[in-house]
């Protein structure tokens, strides 16, 4: 844990209330996010029990499965979920703008600009917790390989229409959620813990109600007491006052309320299905309200300046998946091949570096954490000495002396970066500490951001008295080298993967032949 977060957590304990970790909101929050609160059946992987879903906090749509082991009822649930989710997801597909992008021309091999469609907005799903994100992924995996009667009339158990399509979208959201800073699918606990530090452990922070108790405690109640109440308090019947945010349910609920109701349903008792629906809704509704309470808290924070830039990447992601579905491509494979896995890892590492840099640049409190960690420093210019590079075309390389109270971890020749107006960046290199190795005085040499001429552009060289913030990390980190195409996978990595057409890529699991997941 970064030192500044440790400090914030200690302050939260002392103050009896969560402490902010940021001054702005670092994640995009859609105007109308789709909130999904799922519940699952204990003891059976991927068997949904019910869900609340919708974009209107007053009118969630309740879906329940009175007997989750009944596959027909499960399909019925998934079909209803597709009805609730897909119109929302598709609703962003046709509102497009055009962007210019460089693509390699297949004939000439040159980079040529092309006009491509980019959706102006994208859907956003919010689930209560990280386990909810994993559940969306699981549902996606269980649905995307199903075949509808329309797709394959021979399929033994055809899925209702749209269920495979929902599986593909859920898989896409689940994969995108692994990209640092991506906002197509978010968990409320993840959003809140990014912006506030509580006085409890990271594990306890996964309990949405307890987390909210720290951030927004009821009036007159200390946060710790409210959080403990949310986590553990039970009524006279032994039921939790705050049901868990799911998808797992509380065993006391399963044993004492749900199991008898299901037994009545199995026995054909009239009204049993409605009874189960009411029970499930009673567990879902508090979490549904908690998610919206979290949305309100986050909306009160102003959005970070570079959040829109990252949301644009999410829009690209949405647009390109829309294109893959429209082009009739097959669902995402069960497993990534070697090249795809390596590409995904590389792009996520770049996204992480970009997110870390942008959050710090958007937010002085985040930057303070980086300064405390020795990865950035703030200082006041005391002296600027003009100098020029050697060579045929001397370029300005002024040496700037700064006074700082920070203690950056600098090596001689280390690169430094500073944000200029208009989104540009100035680079510099560390030269030396002040006289006698005084760590409070730093000499740095500007190496860029001064234009192309022999004379620096006006305003591009700081003046004595200016307060500057330099970082040791890049502001727009680039990705690494390109990897080979999958069909050129080398011998060290098992050679090229089987092409979709020529091999049984969907070979069943050897132990359970019916399992194609």
């Amino acid at each position, binding site marked *: 844990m970064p*030192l500044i977060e440790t400090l914030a957590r200690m302050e939260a304990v002392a103050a009896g209330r969560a402490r902010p970790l940021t001054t702005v909101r670092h994640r995009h929050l859609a105007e109308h996010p789709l909130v999904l609160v799922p519940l699952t059946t204990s003891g059976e992987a991927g068997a949904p029990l019910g869900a609340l879903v919708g974009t209107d906090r007053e009118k969630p749509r309740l879906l329940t499965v009175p007997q989750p082991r009944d596959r027909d009822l499960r399909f019925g649930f998934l079909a209803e979920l597709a009805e609730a989710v897909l119109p929302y997801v598709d609703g962003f597909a046709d509102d497009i703008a055009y962007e210019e992008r460089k693509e390699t021309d297949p004939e000439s091999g040159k980079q040529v600009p092309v006009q491509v469609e980019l959706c102006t907005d994208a859907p956003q799903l919010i689930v209560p917790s990280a386990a909810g994100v994993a559940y969306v992924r699981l549902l996606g995996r269980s649905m995307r390989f199903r075949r509808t009667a329309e797709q394959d009339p021979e399929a033994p158990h055809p899925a209702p229409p749209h269920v495979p399509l929902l599986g593909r979208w859920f898989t896409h959201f689940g994969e995108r959620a*692994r990209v*640092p800073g991506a906002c197509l699918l978010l968990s409320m606990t993840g959003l809140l813990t990014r912006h506030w530090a509580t006085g409890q452990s990271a594990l306890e922070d996964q309990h949405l109600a307890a987390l909210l108790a720290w951030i927004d405690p009821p009036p007159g109640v200390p946060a710790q007491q409210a959080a403990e109440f949310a986590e553990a308090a039970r009524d006279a019947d032994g039921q939790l006052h705050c049901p868990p945010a799911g998808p797992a349910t509380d065993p006391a609920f399963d044993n004492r309320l749900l199991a008898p109701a299901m037994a009545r349903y199995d026995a054909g008792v009239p009204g049993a299905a409605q009874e189960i629906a009411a029970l499930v809704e009673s567990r879902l509704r508090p979490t549904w309200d908690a998610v919206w309470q979290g949305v309100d808290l986050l909306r009160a924070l102003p959005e970070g300046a570079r959040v829109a830039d990252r949301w644009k990447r999410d829009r690209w992601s949405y647009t390109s998946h829309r294109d893959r579905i429209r082009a009739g491509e097959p669902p995402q494979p069960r*497993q*990534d*091949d*070697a*090249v795809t*896995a*390596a590409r*995904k*890892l*590389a792009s*996520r*590492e770049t*996204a*992480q*570096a970009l997110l870390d840099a942008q959050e710090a640049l958007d937010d002085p409190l985040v930057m303070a954490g980086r300064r405390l*960690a*020795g990865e950035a420093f703030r200082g006041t210019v005391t002296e600027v000495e003009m100098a020029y590079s050697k060579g045929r075309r001397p370029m300005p390389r002024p040496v700037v002396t700064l006074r700082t109270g920070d*203690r950056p*971890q600098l090596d001689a*020749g280390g690169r430094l970066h500073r944000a200029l107006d208009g989104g540009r960046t100035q680079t510099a290199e560390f030269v030396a500490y002040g006289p006698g*190795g005084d*760590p409070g005085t730093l000499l740095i040499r500007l190496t860029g951001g001064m234009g192309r001429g022999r004379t620096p552009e006006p305003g591009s060289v700081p003046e004595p008295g200016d307060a500057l913030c330099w970082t040791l990390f890049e502001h727009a980190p680039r990705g*690494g*080298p390109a*990897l*080979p195409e999958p069909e*050129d*996978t*080398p*011998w*060290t*990595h*098992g*050679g090229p993967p089987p092409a979709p057409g020529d091999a049984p890529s969907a070979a069943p699991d050897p132990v359970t032949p019916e399992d194609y997941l």
Partner: protein
Amino acid sequence: MTPPPLTAPPPADPAAAAAAATDAILHDTLHSTRRGVVVDSPPGAGKSTLVVRAARELAAAGRRLMIVAQTNAQVDDLVLRLAAKDPDLPVGRLHSSEPAAHDPALAALPAVRTSARIADLADRDIVVSTAAKWAYTKVEEPWRHAIVDEAYQMRSDALLGVAGLFERALFVGDPGQLDPFSVVGADQWAGLSYDPSASAVATLLAHNPDLPQHRLPVSWRLPASAAPLVSSAFYPYTPFRSGTGPGDRRLAFGVRGDGSPVDRVLDEAAASGWGLLELPARHTPRTDPEAVGALARVVRRLLDRGGAATSEQADAPEPLTAARIAVGTAHRDQAAAVRAALAGLGVSGVTVDTANRLQGREFDVTVVLHPLSGRPDATAFHLETGRLCVLASRHRHACIVVCRAGVTDLLDEHPATEPVQLGVTVKFPDGWEANHSVMAHLSEHRVVG
């Protein structure tokens, strides 16, 4: 009656054992029909010497050779070693187009040419560069042979980027050092043979399990006091031994100890090769001021007391200078704090760095801040076997560990809880076990500070 050994016993003489291993490696490299050869090398077992020798023999056999190393420092070091062995060998150093991309010392070597473009190096027998730079290189026709150095520190996806450039390769590395890592989660690929965050050797062997595998059996760096511990704690199934015997290396001080804990731990380390300076148990921030101060005082006294190191490399005892001492830590901020404390005591010229950056380096005496010292928890990062292995295997004479009391209790309170992933080879020893065996050994050389 004892059954006859299945294979010939290793030669008793370490030099003969090492030579036999090297010969077998070079034979497979030059003549095997397989596309790869893997060599495991424990710390200080002559890995660089092997790479230089294999490179020269491949070049002499007329096979154009590319060498892939992981960092620019490793590449520069290899080029310097190649040139020292054979000043006329035409070597190319491919480097990035950044300023100061390579060691300026390379400019003085007549047979070495440096360039940022592979086309400029077309006539070189051997071209050396980093994996990152090679990945940007395009070739018409793959190279006949490659040597991949530090292959256990190379990530699988880095090998994916360069493996198309060569037909066959010799992979050399130390399996006990730090595993490659990723700053983002890669659990989704755990258990796949080509997990991009795994080491290059893991992927290579998963897809080519029948490649010839060798290992170097003798550590020339570690003294007789250290090799058995490092071997049993970190390489339990592939033991190695030291090239020198118990009396071959000696460390002595010209100035008698003053009886303080720091001096007593120095005397213990000089006598036994190991010393543990144990500070009172306490939870501290990473840059524990007391521990940092103790590290600095240990170094100061090492220099003040006129240490002299006797070894097989010189006829007479050599003075222990600042350049032959290193301080190792787990985190960069700890290293920075130690540097500041050393400067405060007027010490300069001592290498202070993290385990990651000390990999592959060698010193007479190392002073180590234990990765778990003062911590309230034992995370996977701090328990990683490779981190402790690197810190405990950089020295030729003695290693002094500074640590808060209570590490064994901390270990017992934090058993490994990482989920078991299907298809992932369980690595032995785990950090928990290795930490315990090292602490058990160190406690015999403990001085309470």
